[in-house]
C-alpha cells in the first residue's frame, strides 16, 4: 500500500481550518520564520479516511484475532470502559494546577484518588502513584524511590540492583537509567532465580532486588518471601514487577509477602487497550515508609470529602507532566469498579485455568521445559521441531496464516526456541480449542511438510520481511 505521502497531490486540501474572526497580524521577524511549509501530505478527507481505514485492516488485533502473546496479557477490553475513558476528553489538566482550580475538577481528581486506593488494596501496598506512563516508567520511578530511600538514610554505598536472568529487559534497563549497575542471577533448574546464587550476590552494596512473579516462565516462585527476607536482611529493598499480576488477583498481594515497591501495568492487568504498542500506564505502589519519596504532586482527600492536589516536598520530584495517562487510568478505574472483588478474582482464576488447559493440550507435541502447573501463561520450546528444521518462528508464522496472532517467541531468553502462550481469561475454551488444533497441525506439518511452515505466512499483504536489510538501510522516514 502506498504511503500517505505518496498519495499527496499538490494543492489538494483536507479538513477546513476555521475562518479567522480577528485581523491578520504583522508577520514574525524573518529570522524566526519557517522557510518552507511543512511538507505534509495534501490529501482530501476521503483519501485520508480510506487510507487509514484500509491500513487498519492490515493489522491483527484482539478484536479480530485470538492474540495469545505471552507476557503481554492481551485480554479483551470491554467497550464500556473505552467509553468511560473518553468522557474526560475536554478536561484541561492545567486547571487542576491553577490556584482554586481543584474544585473544578473534582471528578477526575476523585478517579486518581480512588484508583490509587483500589490499586493499593489489590497489591497490599500503602500508597500508589499513577504518574508513571508505562510499566518501564514505573520501574524507573520505583527504583528512583528506592534510591531516595537509601540516600535519606545516608546509605550511599549501594550501587547494584539484582535481577534474575529471566526478567523483562526493562528491569535492568530501568535500574540502569536510575544510575545502578546490574547483577544478573541465573535461573535454577527448577525454573526460578537460583536461590543460592542470589544469596551469594547479596551484599551491602545492593540497593534492590527486582523480581517478576509469576516469573516469565509463568511459574509462581514459592521462595519470594524468603528472597524478600534475605534482601531486607542485607539492607536492600525488593521490587515486584507487576507485569504478571493478572495471575494472582485476590490470591497473593506482593505487599503482604514483603515487597517494598511494585508497579502494575494497567494495560495488561486492568483492561485497557494496548494501542498498537501504547499508551500504557504503570502506577507504582510502595510500603509505608517509602510513601514520602513518591513523586509530586499527590492527590489527597480532604476531611470534607473533596479532593485536592498537593505538593509532595520530600518526593523524587515529577516523573511526568501531570497525573499520568489519565484517560487510560479512567478506563482501568472503570474496569476495576465494574468487575468488583469477585470479578477480579475470577480474572485470575480463569486466566490460570486457560493457560493450564493449553499447556495440558499441547504438551504431547511440544517440549515443556518446566512441566508443572503454570499460572497465567505457559512456555513451550520448539526444540523438538528444530530436529526437523522447524523453528519457533516458523510455527509462529504458520499461525498467522491460520488467523491466530502468534505467541511470544524466543522469550524468555533462558528457554531455547521459547513459545510463550498467554491466553488470558477473556478467551473461551472454543477459541482455545481452535488454536490448539492449529498448533497440533503445525507440529504435524513440522514432521511431514516443514516447507509449509518455512513459507508461511502466505495470506498476509507481505511475507517475511528482511530485517537485516532494514537495519542496514536505516530508512526510517520517506524523502
Amino acid at each position: 500500500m502506498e504511503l500517505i505521502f505518496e498519495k499527496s497531490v499538490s494543492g489538494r486540501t483536507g479538513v477546513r481550518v476555521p475562518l479567522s474572526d480577528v485581523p491578520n497580524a504583522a508577520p514574525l521577524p524573518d529570522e524566526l520564520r519557517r522557510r518552507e511549509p511543512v511538507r505534509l501530505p495534501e490529501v482530501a478527507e476521503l483519501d485520508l479516511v480510506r487510507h487509514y481505514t484500509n491500513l487498519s485492516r492490515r493489522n491483527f488485533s484482539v478484536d479480530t484475532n485470538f492474540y495469545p502473546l505471552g507476557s503481554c496479557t492481551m485480554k479483551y477490553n470491554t467497550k464500556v470502559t473505552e467509553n468511560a475513558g473518553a468522557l474526560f476528553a475536554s478536561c484541561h489538566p492545567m486547571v487542576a494546577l491553577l490556584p482554586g482550580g481543584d474544585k473544578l475538577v473534582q471528578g477526575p481528581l476523585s478517579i486518581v484518588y480512588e484508583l490509587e486506593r483500589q490499586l493499593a488494596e489489590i497489591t497490599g501496598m500503602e500508597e500508589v502513584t499513577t504518574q508513571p506512563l508505562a510499566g518501564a516508567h514505573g520501574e524507573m520511578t520505583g527504583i528512583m524511590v528506592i534510591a531516595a530511600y537509601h540516600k535519606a538514610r545516608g546509605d550511599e554505598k549501594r550501587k547494584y540492583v539484582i535481577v534474575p536472568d529471566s526478567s523483562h529487559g526493562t528491569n535492568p534497563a530501568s535500574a540502569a537509567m536510575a544510575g545502578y549497575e546490574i547483577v544478573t542471577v541465573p535461573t535454577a533448574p527448577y525454573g526460578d532465580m537460583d536461590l543460592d546464587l542470589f544469596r551469594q550476590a547479596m551484599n551491602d552494596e545492593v540497593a534492590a532486588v527486582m523480581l517478576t512473579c509469576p516469573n516469565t516462565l509463568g511459574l509462581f516462585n514459592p521462595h519470594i518471601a524468603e528472597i524478600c527476607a534475605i534482601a531486607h536482611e542485607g539492607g536492600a529493598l525488593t521490587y515486584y514487577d507487576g507485569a504478571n499480576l493478572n495471575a494472582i488477583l485476590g490470591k497473593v498481594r506482593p505487599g503482604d509477602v514483603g515487597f517494598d515497591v511494585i508497579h502494575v501495568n494497567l494495560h495488561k492487568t486492568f483492561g485497557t487497550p494496548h494501542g498498537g504498542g501504547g499508551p500504557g500506564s504503570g502506577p507504582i505502589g510502595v510500603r509505608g515508609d517509602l510513601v514520602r519519596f513518591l513523586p509530586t504532586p499527590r492527590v489527597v482527600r480532604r476531611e470534607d470529602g473533596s479532593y485536592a492536589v498537593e505538593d509532595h516536598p520530600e518526593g523524587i520530584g515529577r516523573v511526568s507532566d501531570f497525573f499520568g495517562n489519565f484517560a487510560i487510568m479512567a478506563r482501568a478505574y472503570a474496569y476495576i469498579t465494574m468487575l468488583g472483588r469477585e470479578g477480579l478474582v475470577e480474572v485470575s482464576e480463569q486466566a490460570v485455568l486457560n493457560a493450564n488447559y493449553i499447556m495440558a493440550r499441547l504438551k504431547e507435541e511440544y517440549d515443556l521445559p518446566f512441566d508443572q502447573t503454570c499460572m497465567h501463561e505457559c512456555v513451550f520450546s520448539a526444540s523438538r521441531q528444530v530436529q526437523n528444521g522447524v523453528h519457533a518462528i516458523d510455527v509462529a508464522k504458520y499461525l498467522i496464516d491460520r488467523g491466530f496472532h502468534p505467541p511470544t517467541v524466543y522469550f524468555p531468553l533462558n528457554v531455547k526456541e521459547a513459545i510463550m502462550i498467554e491466553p488470558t481469561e477473556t478467551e473461551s475454551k472454543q477459541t482455545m480449542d481452535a488454536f490448539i488444533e492449529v498448533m497440533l497441525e503445525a507440529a504435524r506439518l513440522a514432521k511431514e511438510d516443514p516447507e509449509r511452515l518455512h513459507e508461511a505466512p502466505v495470506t498476509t499483504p507481505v511475507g517475511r520481511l528482511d530485517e537485516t536489510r532494514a537495519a542496514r538501510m536505516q530508512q526510517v522516514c520517506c524523502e
Partner: protein
Amino acid sequence: MGYCPNTPDDIRDMLAAIGAASVEELFAPIPAELRAKSFDLPPGMSELELMRLMREKAASCGADVTPFIGGGIYDHFIPAAVDHLASRAEFYTAYTPYQPECAQGTLQALYEYQTTICRLTGLEASNASLYDGGTAVAEAALMSLRITDRHKVILDGSVNPLHREIVTGYLHGLSAQAVDVAPDGCVSDLARLMASIDDETAAVIVQSPNFFGSVQDFRELAQKAHDHEALLIVSCYPIAMGLVASPGEMGADIAVGEGQSLGNHLSFGGPYFGFIATRKRFIRNLPGRIVGETIDHQGRRGFVLTLQAREQHIKRHKATSNICSNQSLCALRGLIFCASLGMKGFEDLARLNYDKAQYAKSVLGAVRGVDLLNCGATFNEFTLALPKDAAEVVQRLLDKGIAAGVPLGQYYPGMERALVVTVTEKRTKDEIDRLAALLEEVLWS
C-alpha cells in the same frame, strides 16, 4: 460472574483435560502463607451503573471552563476524522508490532508518523514516540550524554518548568550535572547560555516557543555549542512549526516536544505523546522503537521494527533507554491530524493561532494597568504584567468560568504578577474580548 466466557461445562471439561479437580488446585503452587491477607473491594456493577457513575464524575471535570491556558498542553481543534480513524479496533486493540506480517497497519502508520516528525522538526530520523513532552526532553538529555560521553547539560530556565523538573530527576540518578541558566525576563539569556558552554558540555537545552511564549533565534547558540562539540537540543511546540523556524533550521541536533496538540484530547493530562528527532548519524543513540522500511522475499515493500539492538529487550541494561510501551496510538492520532490538515492547512492553522494571540495581546495589553512583558516575538502565548497578584486574579476569573492563564509565581519566584496567556484557534474574538472585560472588572471593581 464477571467477563470471563467459560461456562461451568467448559470449566469442567478443561479441568478434566488438565487433570485437576478444581480451579483452586491450580493455585496450589502458591504456599498458603503467601496468600492475600485482604482483598477488600466492593462488588461489581453493570455497564449501566458504571456509566451512570462515570458520567457523574465527568460532569465535574472543568470542561465548561474557557481555557486561555497552555503550559505545554493546548486546547486545539481536532478534526472528526481523527477520532473515527484512531478508534478503529484494529489499531487500538493491537499490541507492539512484533510480528510485522500481521502488523503492517501499525508499522506503516508509525513510519508515516516518523516521516511527519522529521518534516515538522527539520531533522532526519525520528523514533516511534516517547511518553510525553517532559520525558522526551529528559531522553534527549540522556541521549546527548551518550553521544558526547560527557556529564553536563545546560538547561535554559525558560524551558517548561514541569519538564525541567523531570529532566533534573532523570539526570540526578545518573550523577550527571544540570546547569540552570535563568531567563532574562521572558527570553532565554543567550549570552549566559553561550558563556556556560565548555568542553564538558554535552548539550544545551532550549525551548521554542519558550514557557513565556517567546520565540528566539538559536542559530548562534547552535554554532557555539557545535564549536565545543556539544549538542543543541530544542524542545518545540509542534503547532508553531507551521510558522516558526524549525529546530533543524535553527541548527538543533535533537528536537523533542510534547505531541498532544497534534490531535490528542486534553484528557486531564494524558495520554499524549513525546516526539524526538535527530540527525541521521545519531540514529543508533535514539531511545525507543524505530520503524524501518524493507522488502519481503518477493520484493514487496514492508515495514519492521528496526535497530532493535538499541533496545532493552535485546540490550537490557546497556539499552539506549528503558522505554518499552510507548504512545503509539497517540502518535497515530498526531499523524492523522497532520495529514488531515495537510501542508497548507497546517500553515493556516499556525497562522490563525498567531493572529488570534496577536489580537489578544492588543486587547489585553490595553486593559488598564496591564502591561505586556517584553517577550520579543511570540507565537500563541505571551506574558502579561498585572497590577495585582496573578494567582488571585486567576482564581477570581476561574469563578467566572474562564481560565485566564498560568500565573508564574509558583514557577518563577519574583514573577507573582506575571501571567502567561494562551490563545489557540479555538478561542473566538468574543471570548478574547470577554476575557479583557472580565480582567478589567476583576482588577478594578
